[in-house]
């Protein structure tokens, strides 16, 4: 169960500059734990003290916001493409 995660610029210091990493994980929560094991420090950037995904962090699985898919419990399948994107504003 390997997925690809695109890493945004502000977090690349933690991935030795890599803009994409391959990681295991049956769901988003497990994926984040495995990310942390491979690249220590990543989890605290993505999750608050209770383990919830931070308010200003958006995680997408194949273009769908994980908040619509059960958040941390969103299930992943082999080959899924994930993006981590800081919330950005536009509009009014």
């Amino acid at each position, binding site marked *: 169960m390997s997925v690809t995660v695109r890493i945004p610029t502000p977090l690349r210091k933690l991935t030795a500059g890599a803009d994409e990493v391959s990681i295991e994980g049956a769901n988003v929560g497990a994926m984040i734990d495995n990310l942390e094991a491979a690249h220590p420090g990543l989890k605290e950037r993505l999750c608050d003290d209770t383990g919830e995904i931070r308010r*200003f962090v958006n995680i997408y699985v194949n273009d769908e916001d994980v908040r619509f898919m059960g958040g941390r419990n969103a299930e992943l399948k082999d080959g899924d493409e994930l993006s981590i994107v800081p919330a*950005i504003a536009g509009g009014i």
Partner: protein
Amino acid sequence: MNIVRALKCRECGQEYDIEPTHVCEFCFGPLEVVYDYEKLDGYFTRELIESRPQTMWRYKELLPINGDPTVGAQNGFTPLVRAKNLEKVLGVKELYIKNDSVCYPTLSFKDRVVSVALSKAVEFGFTTVACASTGNLAGSVAANAAAAGLESYVFIPHDLEQGKILGAGVFGTNIIGIKGKYDDVNRLCSEVAGKYGWAFVNVNVRPFYAEGSKSLGYEVMEQLGWKAPKHIVVPMASGSLCTKVDKSIKEFIKLGLIEDNQTAVYGAQATGCSPIAKSVKDGTDMIHPVHADTIAKSLAIGNPADGYYANRVINESGGWAEDISDDEVVAAMKLLAETEGIFAETAGGVTLGCAKKMIESGKLPRDESIVLCITGNGLKTMEAVADAVTKPRIIEASLKEFDLLAEADGVNV
């Protein structure tokens, strides 16, 4: 005088140097420009401001650029209209329209933020500017970039109103239509911005860009005779304008330019995309993203980045938030046009329609001053009202035919 101190994370307070960056490296919170206001003591007076040209840059000390603007020096300073006819229809005592539907040069309040963003981009040494946009921003970036001799890329949802697509493309920009909603465009741009060395006005130069919105608030206060309104209603997409209007009022109070009038800030959304209004009504600060579906496309942001802060401003100021259906949006656009001669875009219909609803429900008092912020022009969203407006009656160029028509209308010669 430059009083900009730093960029500061709104969540954890970490400060950063003035650079093209927008999120906190530690907690991903948004960065905001902070100032050393005390440097303006005794210098930044009403007289100084009044002595300057009527543009948004008469408040330049409170906008985060060095010296004078290099882009958009003429932008802003739109009319504040006393809406006597609407007052009668709505049954309120003192109502004003801040009319950014005639903002220079592209007829939306985005000319304010873009002027700041592109001036800052030039300062940072960028030669290409870009944006993710629901339409107005694309037009403004394209126009202001053209005038400043900058290359531009604008990214929009592919199914925007024709007026907005044409209103950006005409400036010779690189216009990219994305198969998806604004939230998809935004996500793509966040990734593009990380890869290409461009100034993305609402990504890496966003902290500076967003400050431009404050000029709308400054103008309202000056135009009211150096006074803040009791109530101000703003449309919300990301929620940014709501927070910046509030900031503008607090700054003027801090600088002694106005008295504290306990201004309450109200937010307006279309029901088909109302995550912020819903959170206010539900009494929570949790914003649940939605899949946007409304004719008010400039407000169709399902995942509002400043939603949490807009919610807080509304609650702390004693305001409220409301949302209305697309039919009510069209009805309000017509009402504004027919009573005040102002043709606002769909977002303007949202603002007036929500204000009307809040007046009727008692959330907005009838006997105190109210300002409605109209942020874009109806000529760019004509599709929305095309079926609801009167069509011309076609006759021959014959006096006889017109006489018959006039007689049928009951017109006396």
